[in-house]
């Protein structure tokens, strides 16, 4: 796996890899919390907003490690 950060280009506009990984991480966190809400598992968390932020950060790191190095 290549660990060198690579910028994304959209029509000649360069996007930093952290932005893309962050967006993906947030989307994955949103999807996870949606599932947790659906199966009433969210009630086991003390403070869901903080859990959402933590999940987004975790997913961003995982995406950065596995897919988009930043």
């Amino acid at each position: 796996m290549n660990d060198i950060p690579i910028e994304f280009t959209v029509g000649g506009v360069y996007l930093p890899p952290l932005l893309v990984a962050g967006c993906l991480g947030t989307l994955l966190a949103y999807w996870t919390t949606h599932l947790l809400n659906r199966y009433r598992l969210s009630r086991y968390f003390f403070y869901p907003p903080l859990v959402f932020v933590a999940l987004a950060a975790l997913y961003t790191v995982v995406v950065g490690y596995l897919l988009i190095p930043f």
Partner: protein
Amino acid sequence: MNKITKVKEAIKTGLAFALVFGIAMQFGWMNPYWAGWAVAVISLPTAGESIRKGMYRIVGTIPGCLAALVIHALAAQDRWLFILLTCAWMFGNTYLMVSRQKVSYVWTMSAYVCLMILLSDLDSSANMFESAVFRTVETVMGVVIYTLISVFLWPRTNLGAIKKSSAELVATLNDVCRAGRDELLVRQSPESSFAQLQGKVVQQLARFGQVLQAEGSESYEVSEVRHLWDRFQELSTVWLETAGRWQSGFAELDRINMRAVFPELPAFFDELEARSTAISEVLTGGSPGYSLHEVHLEFDPAALQRLASFDHAAVEVARREMLRLEELTAEMFECAREIQGQAAGGEAKAIPAPGPRDRATRLPVPDWDHVRSAAFVAATTGVGFLIWIFFDPPGHSGWFQLTGTVALMVALVPPLRTSRLIAPVAITSAICLAIYVLIMPQLSGFLELGSLLFLCMFLVCYFLDGMARFLGSMAILNMLQIQNEQVYSFYAMVNVFLFLVMGFTFVFVMSYLLGSPRPEKTLLRLLDRFFGSAQFLMSRIEPQPRRQSDWERWRIAFHQRQLRSFPDKLAAWSKAIDRSLFPDNTPEQIQALVTSVQTLVYRLNQFLEVGSTHEADRLTRELQGDIGTWHAGIETIFGKWSRNPEAEPVAALQQRLEAGLRRLENRIEDVVNRAGSDVNQEAGTHFFRLLGGYRGVSEAALAYAGAAQAINWTQWREERFS
């Protein structure tokens, strides 16, 4: 509004929008979109409403500009003092914005314009005064242009609306009275429940307030007697509250033959109905030839003798409210005659408002939720400023300006969920970004640009409404970035797009700062505070009145204000609860809970009104022990509910209440027999009112327990991701 009218209104707004840009660009004025904002915001269905909002916009712009200049003069070189002063300005203005409903928009503008001018030119403070002047001039120009267009092109006026609205209001008030009469005299359930009629009156009062402001702005005849119309509105509001208190005691009158106790009751209701009809006729310009008759509501002593003590107490409480209704209808009739010039205006009497006596504290008594809203806006502005100076993400100074403005919007409409605005902001901004990138570079003159602006605004006004329309206008004004020397920068605009989405997300995150913004959680918090205030006020009723300190008086006034405001807040938040997430709690059950809280407020106020004027007479002294136990019981229940709103099951509570009533009934009989003729009429009346107050609070608490039992509280308490 039908389709043709909608097209006409959209054309008017689009035309004014394009025109103000044309004028501002022709004269080379700074930031032409400032004038565009004025048009987008004041374009309302009728000319009167637009004129009023336009005036408020101008009036609010001036203090906002001045405050910005003063803050900059004092703290140009000290960032911490700068943010402290700005947050203090935002705090004060937000508090005024949420607490002064009638001129709320003035304070919104004052706060918003201050933020706008403070950072209008970051490179130098030399142009700040120029920015403030241009902001004011362009706002005035936008207001004038839209007003001229709305007056001359397909004008829609409010003239006559006030007469219609006030007559409708009086008719519904009469329906409330008639429903009460049917229930008391005929024992027949009314066609519409009191809660339905009350809801209708509240809507009509709100509409009346809007019409009054709008017609007052375009008609000299109305503005000349504006103070009388305001008084009429105030009298109607107090009438509704009094009727609510009267109606809340009907359950206790169920077993009593009211016609026997008050032989004059049918004549009393006939007189009230005649007055309502006369008020409607006077307000619509007629001359009814009616004159006020004095009506009495005397007891039949024989029928009264036959009543049990608690029934006597209930009758005493109901009589007082009915007499107050009579007094208010007489005041309304006189006020209507003065408005129409049929009576000479004497000195206005004080409105006989129901509720506990004013404790006359000299200190200001704030509303806790208003303070929270103000703190939220100040904190959001402050944190936005810190993000800008320490991280400087895309949007730069916008983190200070836009986030403060969005926070103002949230403070104005607390049940508004910022999370639900993020997607509309992203979509409307993306559409406008596409227009900026693909269409705008092809334009070569103002005719083409003006046509584009007209078309954009026309589509927004025709297809969108309310908040969506505001967001659409915001996207046009922020994303198209029209300047005299136009340059195109895709990079800059993508950053603006990202910033708008991030800014709204940030405000959503900040809304968690003062507790969860979820409606069901807020409802739980409100209920906790409601019972906390109720317990505090009950605990301040003492058998022997003593001199209270200023601090004590202030606390009592604070909790009384809280208590009065809770039912409206609960009603607003209960409507925002997502029913699909909580299928166990139906809208009817939630409405029953809100209604029971409203009833409890009415009964508590009735009780506090008697309790606060409490002078221990002989009867009260003799029953001190029993009444004290009852008082302590109610206080304990409120204390438990303030920690858990379902703490007392209804069946156990009902048993306790019935046993307590029976015990006290026997004791009262003993004491009254022993006292004989030693008790004068005034002391007796006061005693029975006090007794009625205790019973009323207990019955209302029982009704609340019943409504609370039907709610699935566990579901509301469960944590969820927003």
